[in-house]
């Protein structure tokens, strides 16, 4: 029996066993209630970010929803302020500069390593792989002090190169582990026939392993992208809060410190930091779920 028919059959059975409508009403209400409750905080932030500063502090954001057509209360000024004078535009660029290489580099390095661990024989392979997986247990707090000192000596503090390497290294154990699990499951025949055709390992990797591993690579990419984009700790420690290099989470944190009660700025700033991850999440939810399911160790 093939998997799809099985699942159709399963859901049909499930459907048949669901209790009748009357009995189901409380469950439906509960689910709707939970969904509303879960979304309210975010909706509040979103609505507030478009309101006039004066309205924000005199009436609750929910009151704006009851009179949505009172146009004077809506404004885009908050976003203009945050992007311009508060430096969020700059932080957005910095976040992109940090995040894209910090996603691409570990995937590349991990894929090569995972292929070697899975399909090439070499001395100490088992020991080295065990060490790599074993490093999953190290919380990154253990690395902060020595690496910070090292960066001081090497002049890497506050540089993009420094933070890429840090994110790359911290992401590697999980990346190698997940990609190894996937790549080692590829059929052996592929590699045998590639070897017979005289392909080098590099060619085999580029032409066979990479194209076949796209689902695993993609899942990890989304995972790592969100992790790096949302990271505060590593950015604070290795990039610092200097206006030149700050990324979105550090910039938002600075806003909280300086503009603690100015909610028109805070809400707009917070929403900007969430924008890209939310788009990625909503577009690639299925791949993201795969990544989360597989990457639940970090």
């Amino acid at each position, binding site marked *: 029996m093939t998997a799809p028919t099985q699942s159709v059959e399963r859901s049909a059975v499930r459907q048949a066993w669901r209790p009748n409508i009357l009995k189901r009403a409380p469950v439906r209400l509960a689910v709707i209630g939970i969904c509303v409750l879960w979304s309210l905080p975010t909706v509040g932030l979103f609505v507030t970010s478009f309101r006039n500063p004066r309205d924000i502090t005199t009436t609750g954001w929910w009151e704006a929803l009851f009179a949505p057509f009172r146009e004077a209360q809506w404004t885009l000024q908050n976003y203009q302020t945050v992007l311009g004078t508060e430096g969020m535009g700059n932080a957005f660029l910095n976040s992109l500069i940090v995040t894209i290489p910090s996603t691409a580099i570990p995937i590349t390095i991990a894929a090569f390593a995972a292929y070697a661990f899975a399909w090439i024989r070499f001395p100490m392979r088992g020991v080295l792989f065990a060490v790599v997986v074993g490093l999953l247990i190290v919380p990154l707090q253990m690395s902060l002090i020595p690496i910070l000192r090292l960066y001081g000596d090497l002049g890497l503090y506050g540089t993009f190169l420094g933070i890429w390497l840090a994110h790359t*290294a911290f992401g590697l154990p999980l990346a190698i582990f997940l990609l190894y699990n996937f790549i080692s499951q590829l059929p052996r025949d592929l590699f045998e026939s590639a070897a017979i055709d005289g392909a080098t390992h590099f060619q085999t990797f580029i032409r066979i392993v990479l194209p076949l591993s796209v689902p695993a690579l993609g899942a990890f990419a989304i995972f790592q992208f969100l992790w790096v984009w949302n990271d505060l700790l590593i950015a604070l420690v290795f990039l610092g809060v200097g206006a030149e290099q700050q990324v979105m989470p550090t910039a938002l944190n600075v806003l909280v410190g300086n503009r603690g009660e100015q909610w028109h700025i805070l809400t707009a700033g917070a929403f900007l930091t969430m924008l890209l991850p939310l788009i990625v999440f909503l577009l690639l939810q299925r791949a993201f779920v795969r990544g*989360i399911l597989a990457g639940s160790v970090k």
Partner: protein
Amino acid sequence: MSDAIAAKGRETTLSRWLMPLAGIIGLVVLVVGLRVLADPLAGQNLLANIYDLLGNEAGADQLRRNQGDLLLAKILLAFVALIVGVGGVWLLYTGMSAIVGLFSPRLQERIIPWVFIVPALLLLTMYLIYPTIATLVASFTDGTRGDPLRHYRELTTGPFLALFRNNLIWLVVGTAGSVGLGLLIAGLVDRVRREALAKTFIFLPVAISLVGASVIWRFVYQWRPEGQAQYGLLNAVWTSVGFDPVPWIQTAPINTFALIMIFVWIWTGFAMVVLSAAIKGVSVEVIEAARLDGASERQIFFGVIVPIIKGSIITVATTIAIAVLKIFDIVYVMTGGRFDTDVVANRMFLEMFQFFNDGRAAALASVLFIAVLPLMIINVRNLRRQGVGA
């Protein structure tokens, strides 16, 4: 046939020398690019040099004084960064493989696996293995004045015990809250139509950074003195049912729970997704059999389904427990550890950057390491047994 072989021969002689050459050029470009990017003011300096070449000395001067076309400098840097960062790694492997390709096949076979794994091993050694040892050593030697256990002994006194108490509250409430709610919601959404839509609502906060979530909830917890308009959602509801407004963030011990709520809000979605997948895997026959025996829906869920998916529940719980123990962002952004809400990871950060007591920070990190260790071992074992792949 022979043509093909001849063509292949020509191709190999050509690529035999061209590829390594390209590889060497690539490595040089990579090294130069890295030199440029290792400069905190890389963007400005790069654009200033270009302006010098173009004869725009005024523009170059301005940039060197941190003025002028800074946005352009940033965008230029972004491009260089992407090319060097993303392309550079590929050049590295291509170049190395090409150089190895010059050796005899037997030698190649022995060298190539190391070309593939050495970059990973170097980074792991530099960023994880060496620092772990250095941090452990520092916790016994840095600023201990000849008394190796000094930091650890201090951690068992007064204010530091509050850290561990708070971390323990976080561990219990945060883990139980996320897993419990996640399990409950997973069970509920399994029985409604539009399940995927409902799940999206609950799962969405996973994509939001802890800093962003902290701002969202700071607004929910916003407090105004009595008599003023309560525009924070929680106090608005709280006062509308007749209570006095409460400064949730400043009031211990309720504030720690208010912070944990943020964590639960984010992680419940994760627990729900994993547990929902597990519930879907429970065989229909088993559930049917229980129904025929006259079990109620609740009995089926807690008596049949939950025991079957126990393994997944443990995996989810350990994963969340690890995240809870390392919690930093929420506390740092919401209170900075004040109002009796401090936790180990936040305190470690403060020791590093505010009190400049690296030895004590190292001891705190080591405590965290030891606390996470058993959970992580359970987790890695679980994952290896299941052979979970993406």
